[in-house]
């Protein structure tokens, strides 16, 4: 299913889309495939595969640690493509989240070609702003991939409009000023940012990320956003589990809780 279809379907069901994130190759290639398929089966509408990178400046300690583990075990860019292929083949809608240098090193057009062939619908680029993205924009067009850039509470109206205009699929709204990681409360800046995006383009789905860790928080975000993006809390299920089976069952349980949350949006505002 394309990202656009996923958001359409959710809208028809009067609910938000749940996007669950997991680093590729964490803790091993096969384990990460199992984790992602478990998340998909337990209710994540979209699987966001994060390509592990040595210098993830947008990520908090949980994702950093998971990425370090994957890298220390030798995960390669090609493994990430293989993981995407396996998860997409299992029926999940998959997007890739990646810092820019690994893509530049692979070759932007070649990577876009291989990413599309692996079955991903598009790419989220946390450290690539549209200003520097000419090559990726062209490659995404050629290989029919969606482009998700980030917007932030600090973005000016002008930049917000420019960034949303370059997105296809959905736009990623960073809910608060800071790095990834579950927080005890959802930022009040988030609803305002979603409103500002809708003001520039009412048809562009908005996913809200950074800080969501529970079903109740997912419900709160689902009350104002089109998509709820969860990363660190899911990764922690695996990171802190004593063994693989426990990790998978915690992952299923949290995915189900979050999926329940996006189906019962709290009308917070």
């Amino acid at each position: 299913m394309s990202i656009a279809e996923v958001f359409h379907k959710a809208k028809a069901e009067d609910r938000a889309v749940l996007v669950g994130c997991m680093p590729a190759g964490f803790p091993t290639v096969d384990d990460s495939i199992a984790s992602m398929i478990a998340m998909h089966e337990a209710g994540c509408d979209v699987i966001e595969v994060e390509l592990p990178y040595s210098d993830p400046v947008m990520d908090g300690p949980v994702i950093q640690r998971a990425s370090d583990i994957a890298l220390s075990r030798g995960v390669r860019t090609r493994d990430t493509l293989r993981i995407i292929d396996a998860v997409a083949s299992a029926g999940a809608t998959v997007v890739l989240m990646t810092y820019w240098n690994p893509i530049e090193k692979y070759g932007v057009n070649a990577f876009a070609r291989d990413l599309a062939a692996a079955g991903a619908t598009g790419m989220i680029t946390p450290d690539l702003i549209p200003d520097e993205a000419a090559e990726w924009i062209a490659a995404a067009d050629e290989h029919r991939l969606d482009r998700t850039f980030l917007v932030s509470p600090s973005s000016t109206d002008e930049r917000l409009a420019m960034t949303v205009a370059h997105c296809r699929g959905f736009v990623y709204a960073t809910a608060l000023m800071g790095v990834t990681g579950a927080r005890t409360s959802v930022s009040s800046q988030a609803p305002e940012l979603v409103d500002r995006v809708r003001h520039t383009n009412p048809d562009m789905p908005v996913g809200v990320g950074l800080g969501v860790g529970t079903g109740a928080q997912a419900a709160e975000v689902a009350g104002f956003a089109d998509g709820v993006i969860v990363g660190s809390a899911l990764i922690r299920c695996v990171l802190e589990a004593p063994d693989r089976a426990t990790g998978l069952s915690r992952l299923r349980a949290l995915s189900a809780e979050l999926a329940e949350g996006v189906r019962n949006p709290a009308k917070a505002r």
Partner: protein
Amino acid sequence: MSAPTLPDLSGHFGRYGGRFVPEALVRALDELDAAYRSAKTDPVFQAEFESLLVNYAGTPSLLYRAERLSERLGAEILLKREDLNHTGAHKVRNVLGQALLAKRMGKPRVIAETGAGQHGVASATAAALLDLECVVYMGEMDTERQALNVARMRMLGATVVPVTNGSRTLKDALNEALRDWVASVDTTHYLLGTAAGPHPFPEIVRDFVGGIGIEARAQCLAQLGRLPDVVAACVGGGSNAIGIFHAFVPDESVQLYGFEAGGEGVATGRHAASITGGSSGVLHGARTYVLQDSDGQTVESHSISAGLDYPGVGPEHAWLHDTGRAEYEPVTDDEAMAAFQLLCLTEGIIPAIESAHALAGAARIVPQLRAELGRTPTILVNLSGRGDKDVHTAGAYFGILDPVEAIVPGENA
């Protein structure tokens, strides 16, 4: 070859530079850019900066003709004595400029990354002077190796945060400073320590340290009546090098040489030579030369000199390299230490190990310059810092430390 007009408005030096940052930082970078543009043309700001440089930092630094070293090397060696500045290195120029800029932007807090601690100490110094809160991120490995500098920063009122992620060194400290900044941009200026990172940092830092080259060029003309044949500097992130190069870029007769940290030798893979041993990539906000593997993952750098131990380089150097305006060569740890010793013994000057890389490179190119020019060449070397901080490292390298009392902190300060 119109370097003075670069970077372009979006911060590019040819294909290098730019902004590869989270959107959350763009507004802060735009504000910094605007504040800098207005400060650049504001005579009040410029006078304030100039006054601090002269009355506080002790510039212009001397241009010293090193007689005995010249004799030994068969070249006329001029040393730009940045080691004599307050805090002992060229870095004081950058921190004073940026701390003034932070004040101008109304930001009460500065953060900085540091490797060996030199930029951290300089930042803490400027913050103390200008009454700013200062937080310094430093890799845990480095806080252990450089305990004395940690104490210096604390004495100057700064908070030192040991970084435990990744390789626990400079690059991870930089990542952590960026993470802090994403969350604190409203109140905080990121006082970046070298002419690298996202636009406008490479330009701002270059301009703040650009006095090195402007002074040296004028001093050459006044003292010799001519320009040098070569300007040589060490290159890690590259701020001292761009600081001395920039004024000479339009002088076509002057060759520019940047000497990178070759560590144990570029062929061994254990080095910090981003230009001569790395490849084009994106790291810490800019496109430049980077030490990376075939997947674009950053590779750890190695150098005996903590100040050069960084897997990237400022984007303007990448551009100067590609255009051929400047030459870059690696200098190994052993070559640098030989030059370190030579300067100690011939001139009574203990250089920073960083600066010793520039001396070693200058010594190496003398024969080719003599052949090329048919006369004794004149080489201007940026002696970017003093070596007090390196006494322990150098003492261990040369095996001259007393085995019982390896180091007396008071004597290293």
